[in-house]
């Protein structure tokens, strides 16, 4: 009891989340009562095979979708009753997404790509540029601000995407198979970057993956199967991704 009372408030507090789809006549129970708390500064992986409900959980945690039942509190905001526009605002303020396929705007500079979320925050152009440049420097692309996204290597593109996730100063970063489209060297570099951001800046990072290598770099691993959380444990053998640091 005394230990839990000194813990900070969880950034994610999800209780008994269920998600049911109607597929024609059949009902698909993608999530069946998932409960989890994630505290600020954590580095964790949500693992599970395809069809396990992992993507559904990520969509709900990322406020892209809403649970059929259960409660979800993100960084102090109850999101289960918000409308689409309010959810968009929550995503803009509190969540940074990193995708497997980067999802950068082609023929658009790195700087401008990173700026995009801030446009929807309503920031002025000058402040947007300053913050975007800072975010790109933080991911080691300070010298690539004006490069077109499609002229960068895969690893560099994913760094731009990470900068785009960081730039709004979100409560959590949700990374969906972030190394899936990268070779192992670039993948390791990206994991190193995530670890560094987590350790040096205390950024909460949640990976959604079926890749054991990603999970092995995390502090905590949640396993999901058939829409239920089947394991939630601390990883005792957390690997360091950064070789030269």
């Amino acid at each position, binding site marked *: 009891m005394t230990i839990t009372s000194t813990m900070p408030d969880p950034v994610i507090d999800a209780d008994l989340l269920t998600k049911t789809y109607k597929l024609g006549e059949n009902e698909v129970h993608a999530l069946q009562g998932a409960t989890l708390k994630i505290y600020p500064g954590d580095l964790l992986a949500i693992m599970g095979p395809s069809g396990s409900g992992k993507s559904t959980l990520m*969509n709900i945690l*990322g406020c*892209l*979708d809403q649970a059929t039942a259960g409660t979800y509190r993100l960084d102090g905001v109850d999101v289960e009753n918000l409308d*689409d*526009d309010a959810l*968009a*605002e929550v*995503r*803009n*303020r509190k969540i940074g*997404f990193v*995708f497997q396929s980067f*999802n950068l*705007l*082609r*023929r*658009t500079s790195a700087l401008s790509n990173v700026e*995009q*979320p801030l*446009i*929807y*925050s*309503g920031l*002025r152009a000058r402040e947007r540029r300053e913050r975007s440049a800072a975010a790109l420097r933080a991911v080691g692309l300070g010298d690539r601000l004006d490069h077109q996204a499609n002229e960068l290597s895969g690893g560099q593109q994913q760094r731009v995407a990470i900068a*785009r996730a960081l730039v*709004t100063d979100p409560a959590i970063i949700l990374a969906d198979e972030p190394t899936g489209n990268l070779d192992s060297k670039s993948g390791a570099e990206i994991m190193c970057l995530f670890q560094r951001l987590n350790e040096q800046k205390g950024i909460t990072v949640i990976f959604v993956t079926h890749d054991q290598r990603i999970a092995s770099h995390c502090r905590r691993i949640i396993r999901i199967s058939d829409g239920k959380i089947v394991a939630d444990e601390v990883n005792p053998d957390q690997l360091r991704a950064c070789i030269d640091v």
Partner: protein
Amino acid sequence: MFLIEVIRLAFRTLIANPLRAILTLLGISIGVGAVIALISIGNGVQHYVTDQFSSAGTNVITVTPGRMQRGFGGGAFAQPAQLTMSDWRAVASGVQGTSAMGVSFSRASNIVFSGKSSSVNIDGISPQVTSIQGWTIATGRFIDDADVASRSRVLVIGQSVAKDLFESGEDPIDQSVRVNGLPFRIVGTLVSKGSSFLGDQDAIAFTPITTAQERLFGSQSQGTSGERIISTILLQANDDASRPAVQRDTAQILADKRKIEPGEPNDFTVRSQAELVNSFGLVLAALTTFLGAIAAISLLVGGVGIMNIMLVSVTERTREIGLRKAIGAKSGAILSQFLVEAIVLATLGGMVGVLIGVAGANLASRLAGIPADVQPASVLVAVGFSTLVGLFFGLWPARRASRLSPIEALRFE
């Protein structure tokens, strides 16, 4: 501030695919260009025609023999009606409110000078006709009362006649020419009125009406009643206000004089220049509107082109839409992004269309010799309308984009 971002984004997107953007906006450009060119040419023709009639004299009322026919076979006269000198005298002495009046007797003939000949309409006139018709003397003098009284064989010729008969540098004044074998002396030349759709106005020669009736075309001017016949009576009303009264009085005097029973149709026509100008103006305005409407249809086709390309664009950029929603774009932001893109496309197309239209109107006016009249209002309306076309045809694709589910959109391959 957000709007500026959206407009900037629209331009960046369009520049990213320049060929597609140009081809799409070309559809609108052609539509707007066609509307502007056709309306400008139509307006030009309208003004040109009005000017032509006005140059023939303002507030002018003409009286001609015969009834103005409406349609074919509507009661033709067995014997063509004739107006005579006594009709003219009745009008001249009875009608009030005119500043000038004249009478003419015209026949086509040839003027011959040292082996060269010019085929023209010879107008036998009373002195005031030239001023009513708006002629100005270039060299020499007009026909005067003394000429009429003495049936003198004098001619005042138009520039086309002068060109036909004389070398450049040769002075026509006091030259002796022949008409129907009779010697005539040229006493004046007229300032050119140019040619119009009415034909070459300068192919004309004036002579005193008495000379024409009694010396030149003696047998042709012999009316059935034994009197000399006339071709036209010209009256110039004091002003616009007195014109209807002059017209009405003239008709009444002539009907009384010619003993036409009330209810019977007149066997002569009293017509004002203003009526003619108005009816021509109405026809041409209707024609211009009609042409503009046809051109506007091509503008709609251009709009469908925009809708088509915007739908393709929404499909192609589904993942971008998904991403934008994931990073916090509300539905309204996506809607305005695609809507502004369509509007920018259509408006740019409209602006290019204005250039095409003005160039087309000028080219056509140069080729046809009719001045085009590009009105700033029609340019504004055309660009404004193309913006509306963009708004209208962009709305559906933009709504489609804004309603995409972010999860589905991000998963889209």
